[in-house]
């Protein structure tokens, strides 16, 4: 099997695909955003709830997608709980730049998200990895209910 495939489908990715964290609906969410990848028709809905200080208190997602999009969203929800708006947006920029190759992956700043770095060798899959992240950005910066990654 090619090394690059093993690099893409790392154990962390496979684990989060098999058993996505924070998967489900959030009844008392402040923001619900639907993300669509028009290329493949995959849909994902992101639920975000803020606490009284404006920090992300809870976040969940539902939907169907490929292993990359599910694992990326799952890893994202795990990471952003407790972050402020600005911190979460900063993380969005970091992940975005790593996925698009504008920045080398920094293992310290990325921590578990470093598992997404294998996507960089698969340009056609970058949209999959960023679907959940774009939904997050939309949830934090606009009042739109729908986004598409194209």
């Amino acid at each position, binding site marked *: 099997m*090619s090394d690059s495939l093993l690099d893409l489908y790392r154990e962390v990715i496979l684990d989060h695909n098999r058993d996505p964290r924070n998967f489900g609906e959030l009844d008392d969410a402040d923001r619900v955003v639907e993300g669509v990848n028009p290329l493949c028709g995959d849909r994902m809905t992101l639920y975000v709830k803020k606490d009284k200080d404006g920090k992300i208190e809870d976040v969940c997602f539902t939907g*169907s997608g490929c292993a990359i999009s599910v694992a990326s969203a799952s890893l994202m929800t795990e990471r952003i709980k407790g972050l402020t708006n600005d911190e979460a947006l900063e993380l969005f920029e970091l992940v975005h730049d790593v996925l698009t190759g504008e920045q080398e992956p920094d293992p310290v700043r990325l921590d578990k998200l470093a598992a997404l770095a294998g996507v960089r060798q698969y340009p056609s*899959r970058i949209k999959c990895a960023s679907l959940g992240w774009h939904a997050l950005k939309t949830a934090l910066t606009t009042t739109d209910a729908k986004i598409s990654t194209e």
Partner: protein
Amino acid sequence: MSQAPAAAPGSGFDARQLRRDFPILATEVYGKPLTYLDNAASSQRPAQVIDAVAHYERHLHANVHRGVHYLSQQATDAYEGARDRVQAFVNASSRQEIIFTRGTTEAINLVAASLGQALGPDDEILITWLEHHSNIVPWQLACQRSGATLKVAPLLDDGSVDLLAFERLLTERTRIVAISHISNALGTINPVETMVDLAQQAGAKTLIDGAQAVPHQRIDVSALNCDFYAFSGHKMYAPTGIGVLYGRAELLEEMPPYQGGGEMIRTVSFTDTTFNALPYKFEAGTPNISGAVGLGASIDYLNNLDYALLEAHETDLLEYAQAQLLELPGAKIIGTAQRKASVMSFTLGDIHAHDLGTIVDREGVAIRTGHHCAMPVMERFAVPATARASFAFYNLREDVDRLMAGLTQALEIFT
């Protein structure tokens, strides 16, 4: 590598030899031989087509129908020669009935826009649940403009059209019936002869989207008795950007033009413009001349093949692939109609089609993954996406074996 049998023993169709006509099939992908199984999206071109286009570009090009000079005449002859070949290829009764378009999509849009002008709020258009988006959206637009209603014939669980429902949906209000000959998403071959008959009895005009049919079987529009037949060059071993609308001359005569511009007029003045004769009335602007030349060359190429053997070879590939696939745990074929072209749409356990596509790609295997521009079909079978292997006559059983090796890897990664 040992030489696997190219086809069913004794089929007499030398796919291995024909394959050599297609230079791109010798490509290596990630150090592996290319296994091209995305023919339903776009097929590859033989050297005969590539050379015909290059010869045209090097020696014959000028604008058509306009100049008195030598090259303009050469280009016009090449372009119109291609039209004659298309006419013979689909057995149309006259060359006026062959309109060059950019492809199937433009051909359907032409009919929807032009014939669509006669529609009113009481009228209905009938399509099927199998259609490619390009045989759905132009009709939706025509309905929006005219207030007409779009009706959709449902599918049975095997991916064939529910003919009883189709018949029930045909009423005296039905003006146009637009159906695919072969489904790109599932491979289902529709009983278009019967469907055209039923539509005509109801007094409706008929359009067949033949994009997937032309590479697999001989088309005879006169025998089909349809009013319009649309197809694309790039799915039948010709270049992109060229396609055909066959239309019955009496209808085309009555229909208003689609686009305005050069070529399609006889005289222009600010008070009264008169339109050119068929087929030029529907060919506004400088056409894709080299594309038409390439299409003519692909027809010459196909005319040299024995279609009975070609079909037998493709059927063998499909049956072999389906049998191999079903050996894999969790494999499911979507689209199991009795009559199917060499298109295999499938899912493999919970593994998403995109992951399958990426993994087999690293083995050099090109398949299509996603909704195949047929989102309603995906919805009907409750899958977000499928993987699709589609075979051309130049594929071999060993291409199937490579696909299966790739899918086995996917199973290893995901379990």
